[in-house]
């Protein structure tokens, strides 16, 4: 998957997990920007990312992946 594909997938996962419209998401979107990206939906996002990208996310990372850019950086590495 290319970096651009990653970004598109991240948007899809966040949109599906939180109900936030895909169009409203961009690279600068962070958890605190949307009320619907709360802790309940955040864990949904984490579990979806693990499943989709087959990457294990540890406890410390779960908390720090709180923005589109941090998720992208994590996946790109």
């Amino acid at each position, binding site marked *: 998957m290319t970096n651009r594909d990653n970004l598109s997938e991240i948007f899809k996962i966040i949109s599906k997990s939180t109900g936030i419209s895909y169009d409203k998401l961009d690279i600068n979107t962070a958890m605190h920007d949307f009320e*619907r990206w709360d802790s*309940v939906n955040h864990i949904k996002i984490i*579990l979806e990312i693990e499943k989709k990208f087959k990457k294990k996310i*540890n*406890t410390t*990372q*779960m908390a720090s992946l709180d923005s589109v850019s941090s998720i992208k950086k994590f996946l790109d590495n």
Partner: protein
Amino acid sequence: MLFYSFTYLLIFLPVTLLLYFGLRYLKFNSFHFLIFASIFFYSWWNIYYLPIILFSITANFYFSKILQKEDSHKKKYLFLSIIVNVLLLAIFKYLDFLIENYNLIFNTKIEPLNLPFPLAISFFTFQSIAFLINVYDNEIKEIKFEKFFLFVIFFPQLIAGPIVKYNYMIPQLSNKDNLRFNSKNFIIGLTILLIGLFKKVYLAESLSVFVESNYSDLENLNILSSWVTSICFTFQFYFDFSGYVDMATGSALMMNIVLPANFNSPLKATSIINFWQKWHITLSNFLTNYIYMPIMKTFKEFAFYKSLIAILIVFFIAGLWHGPSWNFVIFGLFHGFGLVINHVFRTFNIKLWSLISWFLTFNFVNISFIFFKLESINQSIIILKKMFFFEKKEFDYHANYLAILNNDYNLLITLCISIIICFCFKNSYSLIEKLSIR
């Protein structure tokens, strides 16, 4: 040593600041000095607590070293280290509570142990558990004993938080530039400390006189006085806790150390979810990151009902963390159920007018604090009955009570100031951000 005591404000803090900035000229290690100052600060309460925190620090440092070395049994050692921390907390904080409940259930008469309750044990236990998980996750690379020691015992945040992270504190404490006196940070820090002092000493203490006098005479409360008293306690509790944290933040800032925000105008919250994003923020973050999310991960597949169960478990723990009493458990579960309802509303996109949302949230929090304040469930029920059941014979008493309230100018002034501060002003952290430190 209390932050608002003369000993702290006029002797300990000025001397510590003077030496903190001055000792570098003598090439004295600032870490060692801050450790010494923090040990002195902690021991001032009761030197008999010192061995317990020293044991915790030494054991957790040892565990962190094992976690860094181990590969094959890493998970087992993490569990063991968490169990040791929880056991230490349980022995000193919850053993008598367990004995009391055991006696009640099995009709036995085991004597309580009356062990001393080491100051700050709840805070440094959670902080150490978070540290060990971070080490397990390889997020902390370099651990030195003196750094870890100071991370746990650093006096501004030791007693009542905020709960800080190793990777957040150590770079600041290690930064040699922070040993240089910074007049801007000093002035902002002093301002925050004085705001905290005002909240704690004037507002919280003034309200507590009224609250204590009314709650010591529960039977004579009526619908009006029980509501006024509960609201006064809500303000008192907020000013007490946030005031203390402000003093911690201000003290640290004078040393160029920025502590994380712990309160963000929580009484303006418009939902229970929002409340916990604004009240005791570092505890909320700990509960979310180190209890809620790991529970959810064990479920593998996400389901909404599973997340609601996890919230209730987390808030049961949160309630118990506040103290060894069923009232604290009810306080935690009350908020847990509030969050569950809030999440259900959010999922089904049910929205209320913001003023109504605020009103419901404020009253929910106000009622929950009754369980926090009073010692027994029976006392809490008496107050709740007084608040929600009107007795006709009380009419005359209400008139008298209103007259008493009108004559109690000090209470009225304090309440007005409290309302203005909570709802019209920005909070201490907005002030720090606005003045942009460094």
